[in-house]
Structure formats: structure tokens, C-alpha cells
């Protein structure tokens, strides 16, 4: 069942993105920004946790999940260390993803070349 709910929740989140692209002509960079901020806001309001509870990876894999992760990290650190946590929590929570993107980005770009589209 987790696969079905992940598929549906993840699919819906992506489908909303497609509607935004086709209706508002937002570029993909803007879509990503909108999604990460939306994730932070929805997580702060306690809404995104419910979506994660239902959708699992369907909610954490989309970029809203990255925003949710940042917010969760910040809240945890604020609760532990006070105001300092607002500054340390985000990068700590996003560390794995960011480091992986930089490292694999570097590796792949060093190895491969872009190709013309057909």
C-alpha cells in the first residue's frame, strides 16, 4: 500500500507543478523555488507532516519535501539550542542532499559532455 499512496501523492504534487508550468509559463528554476518555499511554509503550519504521513516518499521526494526537511531541521535545532538553531538546522538537515548534488554534479560534469538534442 505504501507504493500506491506514494505514487498518488507524488503524482499529484508533480501534476500541480505541470499545471503551474503550462498556465503561468514559469520556468523550471522558478517552479523549484516555489516548491521549496511552499514546503517550508506547509511544514511550519504542520500541514506537510500529515502529507508525509500519508504519502511517504511521495511527499519527501518532491522538492516540497526538501523544504519540509529544512523546516523540520530548523525547528529541532531551535528547540535544542534556541535562536542559533534557526541558522544551523537548515543546512544540517539538507546536508546529505546538498553535498550529494555538489559532489555528483562535479563528478558527472567532469566525466560527461552535453549532447545536442534531437
Amino acid at each position, binding site marked *: 500500500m505504501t507504493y500506491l499512496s506514494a505514487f498518488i501523492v507524488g503524482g499529484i504534487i508533480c501534476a500541480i507543478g505541470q499545471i503551474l*508550468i503550462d498556465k503561468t*509559463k514559469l*520556468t*523550471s528554476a522558478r517552479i523549484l523555488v516555489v516548491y521549496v518555499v511552499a514546503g517550508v511554509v506547509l511544514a511550519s503550519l504542520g500541514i506537510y507532516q500529515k502529507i508525509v504521513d500519508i504519502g511517504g516518499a511521495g511527499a519527501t521526494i518532491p522538492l516540497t519535501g526538501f523544504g519540509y526537511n529544512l523546516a523540520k531541521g530548523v525547528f529541532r535545532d531551535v528547540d535544542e539550542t534556541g535562536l542559533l538553531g534557526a541558522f544551523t538546522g537548515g543546512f544540517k538537515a539538507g546536508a546529505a542532499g546538498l553535498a550529494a548534488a555538489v559532489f555528483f554534479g562535479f563528478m558527472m560534469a567532469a566525466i560527461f559532455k*552535453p*549532447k*545536442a*538534442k*534531437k
Partner: protein
Amino acid sequence: MAEKHIGKQTVFLKNPPSIKATASFVGPKEGKGPLKNDFDYIIPDELWGEDSWEKAESKLVREVFAKVLQKAKLTNDKIDYVLAGDLLNQCIAANYGLRETEVPFFGLYGACSTMAESISIGSLVVEGGFAENIVCMTSSHFCSAEKQFRFPLELGSQRTPTAQWTVTGSGAVVLSSGGAGPYIKHITTGKIIDLGITDANNMGAAMAPAAADTIFAHFKDTGLQPDYYDLIVTGDLGKVGKQICQEILKSNGLDIESRFNDCGVMIFDAETQDTHSGGSGCACSATVLAGHIYKQLTQGNLKRVLFVATGALMSPISSQQKESIPGIAHAVAIHRTLN
């Protein structure tokens, strides 16, 4: 006392320069399109042995320059000027492509209207008696244009239905005084026209009013009728822009539909090549003129052609600053014979 200037925007060339030879090289995708048999050479891949898209585009310019000279049976020292430009920042494709030619060089920027711009200025120079032979040329490259104006090639984004496909290639013509034709008889120089389009994926719509304005001015200045020409051909309006241009002219009482076409529509098969609204880029009009249209003219299938290359005069910076896209179009009337 500008006796050769007729109307507001047009000049009449009393001693019309003739097109001595043309050359056109295109990329692999253009080489699978409907006009594939009209080009001189189809490069095997987009890098063509170079290590960047920009260098590949310069190589296109270099090789097409050599080819057009060979076809005109001329050597570098017989060329008085070369007029060239392209889409890349500071026109580096032309600058580097022509670096070793040792021919006096004027760099032009007219975005995708560069072919008509260079022929316009080249014709004036030849007709004015300032030069015997001039090479007019331009280039564009799908990958270097994507990189500069849009997104990295490997970014997984979708193209909208109005988007156009930048033609990879380069086209050149040699203009000479005298000669056996085809001849450049009229030049109508366009104004910058901006009706507020901001969507960089709808260039056709941004340029269509400029094309319509220049075509209208040409007929007004010369007193000719559209049926005087066998073909009125715009540069890269694409399917969407072509229709808009036609409609604007119709609402102004000028019906060109029966003889109207667009190089961006002609160069690709939109159904099978997934090019959406059609081709674009400097090389779109340049290669179709130097390849297909020139062939038709010399074979006698076309007798009079009004060639209207269209350009969008924005930059990535102006787009990011939310500026709209100004358009321009220059018209060149090409006649097979002097009559």
C-alpha cells in the same frame, strides 16, 4: 538629393549588384529536413571536431566563407569587404571564424535579420562603387544559442508549442558589381517595432509586426503589388508568426497569402522533426536563401523574390529585466534578370 531613395524606407539600386555565388552548410537535423538537397554540406555532428559549440559555429563561418569563395572562383584578395554577424555575445562566431581571412571586415548585429542586413549594406556599398566583390554572411548554432539564451542542453525542461528551433548552420553570398544575376533591385530597411511581447518562447509573435511593417512599407514605397513577386519569404517567424504577419497585412488591405512563406516553416518538417513553431536563428533565413531560394532563382522556377529576414533584438539581460522583445525586419528584392 538622395535620388535613389524612394519613399520613406526603400532604396532603388540603379546598377543592381548581382549574387555571384552562395554557400550554405547546416547541421545534422537541418540535413534531415525538407530542404536537405539544397545545402552544400551537412556537418556530421554539432561539434564538428571542435571542443565547444562556439568554436564549432566559428568553424562553420570559416568553412562557408572558403566554400563561397571557391564557388565564386575568387580568392581572398579579390574580396573588398566581408560583412558578417551572428547571435553570440560580441558576435564571436563571425569574429573568430573570419580571423584569418585578411579581408576588411564589418561586424554586424541584426539578430536573425543579419542576412538581409548584410545584403542590404553590401548592395549599397557595391552599387555606390566602393567595392567590386563583397561577402555577406551569418551563422547560428542550436547549442550555442540554447546555452546563451535559454538553458543548459541537459536540463530536463519542455518546449512550449510556440517555441522555435535555432538552426545550426551558416550561409553566405558573394555580391558583385555587374555579373549575370540574380540581382538586388530594392532594399527596404526596417524600423525597430515592439508590441510588448515578453514571452521568449514566442519569438514569431514578437517579430511578426516588424515583418508586416517592412513588407507594407516596401509595397507603399515602390508602388508594386504583391503579385509582382513569385515569393515573399520571411526569415524565421515560424508557423505562429507567419500567420500573424499575414493577418496584420490583410487587415491593412495587403493580401500576400498566395505567395507568402517563411524560412522557419520551410526548413523543418514540424510533424516529424518536433520543431514546434519552426526554425529560427540567423542561419535559418541565410541557409534557406543561399541554398533553396538561390537554386530556385538560378533554375528559373522563381523570377522575383522579396526576402525579408526577421530579427528579435533582445538579450538575456533585457529579458531578465522584464523588457519586451523588439523586432526588426529588412527586405531585399532579388530578381532573376534585370527586367
